[in-house]
């Protein structure tokens, strides 16, 4: 068993209020540069919707991710030689318009406007051409289902729904929606890495963070196509691929990634998962129905003695093992089986998991009153306004059973706690729900605590990376005293 550690994440969608604070924290820190203006390493989408970039989930169009092979997954983009043959023009690359053309405003128009009867207007100017432009799309153009006729209706995940389910979901003026914050998944089988001709992308062995080596990247753009989540971006000014770095410089100094630290809904969890690297190829090649379970099976129990022994043999340091034992991500993903990967059918084995939203899914307003569908609170999961099949298309490769299992558990926790704290749910009803969900009362209490009350230090368990020790082993750190540091010191300026 080749045990490795992965810094992975859980986003609890029930708690996301769609405020975009995470996106702004990330943008201010990393992508507020020429050529990167259009990039949102962290973005928050409204679902149902077409996402960012538009229709990124539609792999008939972008060919991102992997296909099942006999023994190992195959790149959906095509074979190696055919990929090289398309370097001169990559037919699967999104254009800037598939994201949006970045712009600013000519604020001098406001400040320098002469006194007059008309309100002065700041003219929008393109950040690409510097010329005046008509704004046709922007980040979160479809926020909160704005323009649903165009955006929500074209969500690729709706294809999995029946006509009746679609009508329920898109019932106009009673639309149901939720937010999906997305960063790089730091996958176990990254599509970007598989597609990079230059070999510039690598997964860090110690923590699983997937990084683009800016000095090796030659701007061949295949990573953008290879990533089915479109979380690698091409800097059109510098000619380099860039992506979320999971704030590794912050993590190496024991700070939490900016998007997670700033999350006001406290929806985000970060921690170590131990996994068996030898099982990656097989887990990514299984039939779609088995993918979620196979990915869970890759994740190892950090408290099992044989796992700990194998991890030690594989060189996982003690402090990482210790952090793995306290990992909130392990609790959500494996112990409580509540967090699911995003589009596992893309076969990249994403390491960012989502707790699906409960939503006010059971309620409608027919007579101006808020009415619960079914005869009791949270009792009619099949009549949800948000069809399980939609969530299955998003989180379980179309399999309804694993999503239904998650919902049984989420609802059971709610009922249990409501019975305890409010008392309007009969105790036997709560007990029945727990039994159906396969949870004990103690587990339900733990889930409630982790979801609602967990402190900062419980939500983010970052092991000491000890990169400095590893670097010291390969060179003298004092070589860089009185310099800026040991890293990459060339300003990211376009070549000529």
């Amino acid at each position, binding site marked *: 068993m080749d045990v490795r550690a992965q810094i992975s994440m859980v986003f609890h969608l029930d708690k996301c209020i769609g405020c975009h604070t995470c996106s702004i924290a990330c943008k201010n820190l990393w992508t507020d540069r020429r050529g990167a203006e259009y990039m949102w390493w962290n973005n928050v989408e409204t679902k149902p919707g077409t996402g960012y970039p538009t229709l990124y989930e539609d792999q008939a169009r972008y060919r991102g991710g992997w296909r099942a092979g006999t023994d190992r997954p195959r790149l959906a983009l095509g074979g190696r030689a055919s990929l090289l043959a398309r370097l001169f023009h990559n037919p699967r690359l999104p254009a800037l318009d598939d994201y949006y053309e970045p712009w600013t405003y000519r604020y001098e128009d406001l400040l320098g406007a002469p006194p007059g009867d008309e309100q002065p207007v700041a003219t929008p100017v393109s950040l690409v051409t510097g010329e005046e432009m008509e704004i046709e799309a922007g980040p979160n153009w479809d926020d909160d289902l704005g323009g649903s006729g165009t955006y929500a209706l074209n969500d690729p995940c709706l294809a999995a729904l029946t006509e009746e389910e679609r009508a329920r979901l898109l019932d106009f003026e009673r639309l149901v929606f939720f937010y999906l914050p997305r960063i790089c998944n730091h996958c176990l089988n990254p599509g970007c890495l598989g597609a990079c001709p230059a070999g510039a992308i690598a*997964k860090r062995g110690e923590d699983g963070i997937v990084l683009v080596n800016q000095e090796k990247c030659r701007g061949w753009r295949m990573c953008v196509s290879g990533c089915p989540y479109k979380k690698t971006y091409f800097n059109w000014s510098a000619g380099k691929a860039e992506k979320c770095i999971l704030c590794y410089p912050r993590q190496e100094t024991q700070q939490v990634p900016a998007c997670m630290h700033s999350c006001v809904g406290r929806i985000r969890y970060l921690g170590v998962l131990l996994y068996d690297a030898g099982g990656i190829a097989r887990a990514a090649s299984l039939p779609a129905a088995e993918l979620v379970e196979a990915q869970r099976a890759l994740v190892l129990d950090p408290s099992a003695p044989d796992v700990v022994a194998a991890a030690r043999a594989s060189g996982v340091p003690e402090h990482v093992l210790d952090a793995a034992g306290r990992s909130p991500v392990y609790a959500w993903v494996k112990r409580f089986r509540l967090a699911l990967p995003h589009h596992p059918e893309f076969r990249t084995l994403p390491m960012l998991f989502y707790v699906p939203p409960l939503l006010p899914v059971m309620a409608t307003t027919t007579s101006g009153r808020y009415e619960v569908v079914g005869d009791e609170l949270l009792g009619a999961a099949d009549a949800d306004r948000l069809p399980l099949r939609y969530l299955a298309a998003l989180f379980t490769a179309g399999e309804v059973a694993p999503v239904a299992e998650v919902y049984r558990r989420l609802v059971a926790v709610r009922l249990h706690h409501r019975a305890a704290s409010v008392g309007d749910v009969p105790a036997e009803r709560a007990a029945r729900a727990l039994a159906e969900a396969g949870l004990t009362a103690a587990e339900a209490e733990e889930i409630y605590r982790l979801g609602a009350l967990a402190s900062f230090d419980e939500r983010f368990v970052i092991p000491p990376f000890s990169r400095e020790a590893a670097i010291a082993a390969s060179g003298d750190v004092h070589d860089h005293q009185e310099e800026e540091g040991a890293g990459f010191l060339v300003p990211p300026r376009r070549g000529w």
Partner: protein
Amino acid sequence: MSGFFFVAWPVLAWALAILGGLYRYFTLRYTYSSLSSQMLAPGSLYWGSVPWHYGVVPILIAHLLAGVFPRAAAAAVSPPTALLVLETAGLALGLLSLVGLVILFARRLGPALRRVTSGMDWVVLLVLLVQVVTGVAIALFVRWGARWYPYTAAPWFWSIARLAPDPSRVAVLPTLAQIHFMSGFLVIALFPFTRLVHLVPFPITYLWRPYQVVSWLGRRGRGRAGP
């Protein structure tokens, strides 16, 4: 004069290309990039870049091979049919690359692409245009280049490589051919100073590298391959 053009200039061009290229690689590696403009104008890139590259790359390889192995090249084109086929293919590829180059030139005049076009980009486009136009003109008017190239240009290259420069065989060629040689070495000289550097790191290793790359610091060593 011919001493400069036929002896000093080729040596200088290669020296600039190799030394300049190495210097840039070791000091400004970040700037090694294709500097693709596909995101900003995907449609016109297709019609420009694909004909250009598919036209010019085989021609470049043919020039290189015939220059390095002149005897084999001369033998290959000695049957008249082979010569005709090769020259026709060469002319077709030359025209293809010319069409591509003109489109690549024209698309850079647009507002978005003008912003990502440096002065050196224009120099490269102009020099390449001269090179391709003279090349196509040679194919049309200085006939059977595949036949005379192994006996004129190739010995000249070899004479320079052997440090006994002998430009006598190329000095008698028509002016058109001489311009083609000189601008050809200009293209080589421009390599490290322009986006042409993207040709050097062509990622041929992709054909055999493992699909997953895991990098380790310290005791587990470097470049351990994943699945």
